[in-house]
């Protein structure tokens, strides 16, 4: 299962352990002077240093980075805050890719590679944690083809829809460089949701326990394709709409109008309840997973990629069939469009956070940073070592 590629030995890991040792001194200080302590003859007793996540540090703001892979598998990380670019180990030349906001998963026909962007966010409701660690190539999983990836705080799921196979992996282990499979499911959609899994299978949408065994609701869903987890539920796309499973395990179908072109993928700013998908050649669907309603946003040109910001202005960011970035302000209907930036014939790569969207340049080793709140202004153009065919914004 696990075929690890070469791993780097980042110098910073040593520094982190040294800091952990320093913290241990402070931590164990107590109100009285010391007599001799318990002997640490068992190093495993202190093998988990005090702190947050092994090898990671917490930051005050999202540690956003771009993780990019070239057509030959050259892999690089660009720090969007500091501006530095670091090259990682070369991986298989990617044919397909997907990201969960921390890991970039790429695949060939035969195998799938997981790269850790080393930056992620954990949302705890009233507060948020931002982490930074060393990026690295984690390892590979046998089996390839088009791939999707989704994560909760503890679990990462990888799905190969064409083969109807999916796995759940231990996310903490992935973060430490190990691929540890916790469940394997026959499904075209697999989402981690709380302590459970939500699967789109030939039997419809099923709630599974962490080991992949049926554990709850089952809801009819023809031809399940595309899924996303929001704060309001786990969403699975179906031929006639979407099934939404809520935190209590209840499942409900939100139907599309009869005859509508269904979306087969959903995309949104991390965690937000309103998600977007393509509506054939007419524009985009917005699915509000909290209100459980669909809304069609029609565009002048057919879209190739779309994602929802779900901010106060209800921005929607898309790439059209001419390679232009299109920003729709759904609250007012205003539309702003860039010049053609993206190769209209390739599969457009579009990522975004609360303030900026990122698209790959049509012709070169560049990524454009678009300020969607400011009339689709190109805020920066970021040079990379090679033209990306797979990329992810991580730290989300």
């Amino acid at each position, binding site marked *: 299962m696990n075929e690890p590629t070469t791993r780097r030995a980042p110098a910073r*890991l040593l520094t982190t*352990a040294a800091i952990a040792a320093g913290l241990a*001194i402070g*931590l164990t200080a107590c109100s009285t002077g010391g007599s*001799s302590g318990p002997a640490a003859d068992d190093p495993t007793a202190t093998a988990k240093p005090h*702190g*947050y996540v092994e090898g990671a540090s917490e930051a005050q703001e999202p540690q956003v980075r771009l993780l990019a892979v070239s057509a030959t598998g050259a892999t690089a990380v660009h720090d*969007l805050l500091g501006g530095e670019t670091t090259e990682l180990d070369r991986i298989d030349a990617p044919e397909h890719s997907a990201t969960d906001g921390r890991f970039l998963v790429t695949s060939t026909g035969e195998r799938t590679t997981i790269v850790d962007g080393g930056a992620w966010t954990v949302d705890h409701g009233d507060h948020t*944690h931002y982490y930074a660690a060393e990026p690295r190539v984690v390892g590979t999983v046998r089996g390839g083809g088009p791939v999707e990836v989704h994560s909760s705080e503890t679990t990462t799921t990888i799905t190969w829809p064409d083969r109807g196979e999916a796995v759940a992996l231990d996310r903490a282990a992935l973060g430490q460089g190990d691929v540890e499979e916790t469940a394997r499911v026959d499904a075209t959609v697999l989402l981690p949701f709380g302590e459970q899994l939500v699967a789109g299978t030939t039997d419809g949408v099923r709630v599974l326990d962490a080991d992949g065994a049926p554990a709850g609701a089952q809801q009819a869903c023809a031809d399940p394709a595309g899924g996303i987890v929001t704060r309001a539920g786990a969403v699975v796309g179906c031929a006639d709409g979407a099934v939404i499973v809520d935190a209590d395990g209840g499942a409900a179908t939100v139907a599309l109008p009869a005859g509508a072109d269904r979306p087969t993928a959903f995309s949104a700013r991390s965690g937000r309840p309103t998600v977007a998908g393509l509506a054939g050649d007419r524009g985009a669907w917005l699915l509000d997973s909290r209100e459980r309603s669909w809304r069609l946003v029609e565009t002048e040109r057919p879209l190739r990629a779309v994602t929802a910001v779900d901010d106060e202005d209800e921005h929607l960011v898309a790439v059209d069939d001419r390679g232009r970035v299109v920003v729709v302000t759904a609250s007012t209907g205003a539309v702003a469009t860039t010049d053609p930036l993206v190769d209209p014939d390739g599969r457009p790569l579009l990522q975004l956070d609360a303030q900026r969207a990122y698209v790959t340049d049509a012709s070169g080793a560049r990524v454009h940073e678009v300020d969607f709140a400011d009339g689709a202004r190109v805020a920066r153009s970021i040079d990379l070592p090679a033209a990306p065919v797979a990329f992810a914004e991580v730290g989300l």
Partner: protein
Amino acid sequence: MRRARIAAALALAAGVVAATAGCSSAGSDRPLVAVTTNILGDVVTEVVGDAADVMVLMPPGADPHSFEVSAQEAARLRAADLVVENGLGLEEGVARHVEAAASDGVPVFTAGDHVEALEWTTEDDSGPDPHLWTDPARMVDVVEALDGALRDAGVEPSGTDAYLDELAALDTAMSDAFEGIPEDRRALVTNHHVFGYLADRYGFRVVGAVIPSGTTLASPSAADLRDLASAIDEAGVPTIFADLSQPARLAEVLADEVDVHVAIRSLATESLTQDGDASTYLGMMRSNTSAIVDGLSIS
């Protein structure tokens, strides 16, 4: 190769712990009080005086939501005479160790059980606000209840009365200091999420705002700053309180792009530091009070 190097580093870490960790388990016959957060650790240390050894689990400067403990400390926790925790969901990383100690029969004192808790709400979620220490009056309630819990656990605290006096003096000092801020300026525009209790006690409004991130500041526009600028405008304050990696850059951009002129200060929030003003609970509260008063009084 990587594994070997990490193992070496961890062995070093273990060695350091061995050399310094043994403050009280051996060689002291006093009772042991284990405390989760370093803020409560300071308070408990003041209250018990010489009557017990106090083991504080959370390192200076750590985040109370996410710090974890070693197997060794978890073992000592289960052997403690009393465990003191904040509760209300604060200590996510050590909650299971506290539960394990409780199931071993160790009495657990939960500060949050002894105060009137506030609720936080977002559009998707809600829960009790655990950051009760930002109100010294609520800390009085905690200390009064703690005194009883210590006595029940066989610890005769010697510092309760003196510390209650300190808390009363702190409360008075904060009230007096905040009185000097014009009422319409008693607003905290902030990305800190801990000041709900302080606001509740002293009549502040907490104005949450989207603080533009580092990527925004690289190439900002007025649109990026609109939310923050309108929050500042509405609050009518000359200072905002935010934890930022580039506060000077944000202030400059606010002035250039939207003609909003504010100072940006950060406050001590949920962890005591090793040294300095915020190395004790009382010191942290006093330094935050003067930062707020100074920040909101400038013209």
